[in-house]
């Protein structure tokens, strides 16, 4: 009986970035799940709208544009340090990773604080009627994402600063950046629906 041949993988690297990494696939799975959730919430919003004659209902002003628009800009701006952190991670540049992660966190504090102002300026309470409920639902769903994204980025930053740091952690930084992209970009249709649907449609 001939001996089995061998496939020697000892020369392979101990990890990889991008879609080669397992973490990327896990992140994409989460993006798929949560993206579906956002999409369904938007569909629910428009469904509820078909059941009432006035949108927003009589006596309710649409959400104020100021803080929502400002926050959209802040969120989009946060993509800059996010991309820089991602690029630094792929270059395995610890100093830059630490720097840009901290800048991202600063943006995170900002957009979470402004989000509180957005809630205050929705011009409707969640328990008034179905319009209020669905507006708060959309804003609330996205808020859970910016809060948790901020927290897990903070923990990641803490690990990269306080250590112990290892090379494979840079893959985690890269994937965190991918998720951050998702959270910001998913906001754009939500913003359109919450702030502009009551005005345009």
């Amino acid at each position, binding site marked *: *009986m*001939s*001996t*089995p*041949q*061998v*496939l*020697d*993988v*000892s*020369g*392979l*690297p*101990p*990890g*990889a*970035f*991008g879609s*080669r990494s*397992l973490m990327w*696939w*896990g992140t994409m*799975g*989460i993006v*798929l*799940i*949560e993206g*579906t959730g956002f999409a*369904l*919430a938007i569909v*629910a919003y428009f*469904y*509820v709208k078909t*059941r*009432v004659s006035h949108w927003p*209902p009589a006596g309710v002003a649409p959400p104020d544009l100021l803080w929502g628009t400002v926050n959209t800009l802040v969120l989009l701006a946060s993509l800059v340090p996010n991309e820089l952190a991602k690029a630094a991670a792929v*270059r395995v540049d*610890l100093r830059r990773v630490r720097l840009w992660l901290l800048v991202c966190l600063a943006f995170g504090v900002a957009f979470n604080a402004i989000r509180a102002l957005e809630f205050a300026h929705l011009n409707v309470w*969640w*328990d*008034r*009627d*179905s*319009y*209020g*409920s669905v507006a708060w*639902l959309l804003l609330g769903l996205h808020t859970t994402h910016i809060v948790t994204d901020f*927290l*897990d980025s903070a*923990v990641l930053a803490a*690990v990269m600063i306080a*250590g*112990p*740091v*290892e*090379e*494979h*952690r*840079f*893959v985690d930084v890269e994937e965190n950046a991918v998720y951050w992209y998702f959270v910001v970009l998913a906001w754009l249709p939500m913003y359109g629906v919450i702030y502009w649907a009551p005005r345009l449609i």
Partner: protein
Amino acid sequence: MNLHVASAPDPKRLAFERTWADPPGWRGRCAAIDHKTIGRRYLVTAFAFFLLGGALAAVMRVQLARPGHPLLGPDLYNQVFTTHGTTMMFLFAVPVMQGLGIYFVPLMVGARSIAFPRLVAYSYWMFLFGGLFLYTSLLLNAGPDVGWFSYPPLAESLYAPSKRADVWAQLITFTEVASLAVAVALVTTVFKLRTPGMTLNRIPAFVWAQVVTSFMVMFAMPAVMLASTALILDRLVGTHFFDVEQAGDALLWQHLFWFFGHPEVYIIFIPGSGLVSTIVTTFSRRHLFGYLAVVLSLVSTAFMGFGLWVHHMFATGLPQLGESFFTAASIMIAIPTGIQIFCWIATMWSGRVSVKAPMLWILGFFAIFVAGGLTGVMLAAVPLNTQLHDTFFVVAHFHYVLIGGAVFPLFAGFYYWYPKITGYLLSERRGRWVFGLLFTGFNLTFFPMHVLGLHGMPRRIYTYLPEMGWGPLNVLATGGVLLMACGVLLFVFDALAARASVGAEAGDDPWGAGTLEWATSSPPPPGNFPSPLTAGGREPLWDNPPDQPVVVGLRPGVRDVLVTHVLDAEPDHRQKFPDPSPWPLLTAIATTGLFVGSIFTPWAVVWGSIPVFITMVGWFWPRSASDGGTRPWPVAGRTLPAPGELPAAGGAI
């Protein structure tokens, strides 16, 4: 022919097993992350819920055997039927199929581990705690009582003032979190951890079924998560999603729920059809006929499954044109299922068939599932649906498709894989008795229900008047339950007693099957494959030439796993997998506190998040400088290639 490297006791092999073993003792059990341990836990726990759900069904059948003078009052009966349905759908059918996936998918693709093992461990605890939460509530007279589908306005706080409906809604959250986590892990495992040589067209049909199912889970479960969250919000903080007084809409619930609910039944059936493909292949001793057609059928069933949900709402008075679309889709989905059936028949026709115990269940599947599928086509027709909807005809239909299409293949899978999991064969003789009792009992119980529905008996009634004439058929249905119970008990006895039988040791491959889980010992060692076998065909143990390469060069002393490319399974890099950890259990406990608390007060969301955050930090925080298998920082020079770079000099083939 044993194809795994070396036989015991080899010091390298012992070291390998020690590296991969879960720690012993109670602390070890809390920290276990071996996918086989988690898979076994899923299977046992899901089966325990099957028994509980079955007991509730038996109570219902005893109640309905006689008209009038019922055993249970309506309040208790409503809790019983709701908990029965909720248990079977959320705590048995989906988890048991995912449990088989957790155990067998890594083995069948030749991997040493499932991807994200700690996440999978966490998912098990969430599943268990969710189920315990439900049954504790039932024992405290707070069991949900508005049906497994929980329609508002009945489920709103005005008509369901107690915590019962909140228990239901939160159970959904537990089980959906668990299922979604497993789905992500399975997809990643199949795409990235396949052994070299296992190109896409060599992936076993069961594994394809699990991938397709996992994608369905990811797209469908957010719908029910959203709906149940909205229901809790309506009940707890006064939102108005579903109550008509403040412009809410009762049908919104139905759309959201059934957008999940219809794919849910395919989430249950598709792994079953993967099991049928597996067992028909092995016991016909030939490759699956029409493999490509079967895989494409799985995929198209999954897609089409998302376009049928309105057929649960034909009685609501929707516009006719819309209804016709959903009728067409509901009828057409029979085509890919039919393709699979014809391919299975063709496989047997041109194979060498042996009817061992697993095969018996497949034959039972043919009879029962096809009948159920045909009544499904009947129900897809709107005019007929308006008569049969919400009657016992529907109860008969879905038990035929779910028990025929999932439970019978599941028992086939139990008989097939029990030797691999435990190292012992189940008794062929007793297996025939179990099959006979279950097949006969099932038909005796559920066939009469078609007639009862046609004779006007609606669903979800705790009793009925004697003059309706439904008594005799109900007695027959209850009689069947006795046979089924005997069959199930005999199975449990056999499963517990198997190792005591003489000659019951299984060996690596008692069935002479061809897929990779049979290329290792029974049960497989920790780490599954010291030297993973590469794949030279779809059934590697049948197709591999004698000199098919085995993988060497993974690092000893660490949990090293080979990661390959998605399409062609070429080796890409090696990944150090995490060590056992108690953090998944601790996080699950914290999450349970958050979920249970938040049905009582919205503040639980805030305060309950804190322990969850703490446990997740504990989970993620690196434990030592060597936790990751790469060198600690800072060190000059990098070893991880950038995204576009090819791997460092690959191994010789």
